[in-house]
């Protein structure tokens, strides 16, 4: 049960943190239509996160005496309790970095939710089924932007290469299953993400080919951080400081 809760929180945290990052663009997008697009994607992701948090809260309340709500899970956990992967907490950078981060993530979510729809856990299956329709839009939108910039002007091409350089190192973590992922995969509730890596790389390669971006070399093994296990970069702390301030300073406040 604990591992199912951890897994559900991992899925929720991924969506919430990327949703929050994308929402930082609201009012600052490069053109109005794309400001609206990235804000819509933020909204979809935060909505998906709410579904996962509500379910996690139900599981927690059924199995422990520490009551939880979707809000307490989002606003009152500290950085080391967050289980999102490092990719989603990276700073927005320029538009190239933001759309590339979205593309890497949407391609992963698209593959994962296709599998998760068949989960033995009815609630996870339902959330995946529902979210998949939204993620399809995100994947298409972000793929098209990677191509538009990669195969665009000299300037946009260089910026896309720089974004690849900054983000690629964070993609390996996504496909290395940690203990709770392996446990829920064994039980038929979750899915072993390492099995998705080939399909994900193929998708990335197809889009990169069209974007005239060389497919990056394998990441050299070395010291690895796992956001999924609560070991985050400094960026997450800043996100939580902004996102959680109000609830911590004025507990239970609403508007």
């Amino acid at each position: 049960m604990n591992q199912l809760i951890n897994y559900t929180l991992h899925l929720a945290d991924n969506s919430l943190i990327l949703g929050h990052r994308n929402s930082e663009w609201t009012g600052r997008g490069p053109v109005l239509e794309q400001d609206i697009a990235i804000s819509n994607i933020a909204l979809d992701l935060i909505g998906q996160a709410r579904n996962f948090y509500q379910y996690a809260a139900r599981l927690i309340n059924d199995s422990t005496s520490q009551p939880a709500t979707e809000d307490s899970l989002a606003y009152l956990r500290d950085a080391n309790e967050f289980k999102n992967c490092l990719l989603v907490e990276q700073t927005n950078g320029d538009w190239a970095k933001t759309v590339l981060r979205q593309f890497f993530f949407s391609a992963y979510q698209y593959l994962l939710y296709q599998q998760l729809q068949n989960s033995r856990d009815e609630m996870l299956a339902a959330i995946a089924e529902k979210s998949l329709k939204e993620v399809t839009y995100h994947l298409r939108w972000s793929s098209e932007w990677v191509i538009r910039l990669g195969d665009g002007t000299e300037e946009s091409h260089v910026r896309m290469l720089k974004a690849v350089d900054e983000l690629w190192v964070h993609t390996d973590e996504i496909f290395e299953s940690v203990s709770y992922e392996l446990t829920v995969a064994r039980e038929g509730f979750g899915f072993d993400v390492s099995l998705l890596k080939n399909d994900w790389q193929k998708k990335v390669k197809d889009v990169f080919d069209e974007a005239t971006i060389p497919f990056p070399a394998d990441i050299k093994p070395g010291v690895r951080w796992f956001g999924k296990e609560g070991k985050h970069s400094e960026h997450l702390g800043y996100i939580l400081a902004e996102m959680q301030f109000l609830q911590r300073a004025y507990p239970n406040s609403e508007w």
Partner: protein
Amino acid sequence: MSNTKHHIVDSADSNGIWKILEEIADPEVPVLSIMDLGIVRDVKTNNDEVEITITPTYSGCPAMDVIRMNIRMVLLQLGYKKINIATALSPAWTTDWMSDTGKEKLKAFGIAPPTTKQQVCHTELFHVGEAIECPRCNSYNTRLISQFASTACKALYVCEDCKEPFDYFKCH
């Protein structure tokens, strides 16, 4: 507090409630009722208890919370004491569930309704879908500006004939 209820006899309650739900508007697209949208999945009643199951359009649609509140308010006014509004995520909502009258109302309101032939978003890049009819001048000479528009459920188009931009309630 009197026990008399304003609504019709118990045996017909759920039928009555289906009718009442036709009066509750979508706060984002007020010409549509929640019945037109096709988000009400089930109504169950038992004396002063009622359970209504709705399915969200998009996961993050802020209108859903308002809709839940509006349903609750209407049922409270009718004398129901125990109101449960459940959410069903599966099967996922689709614009196929939108009523024909709903589609007509959308067009009259200036929003292009979802095409009759259900088209779902797929990952084929730069794909050009079926032409969308301009709700103002009925021209099919229209162009997609963005798959994302003023609300999650709409895309942004422009008509090349009358030159007006318009919202399209996209297939989902």
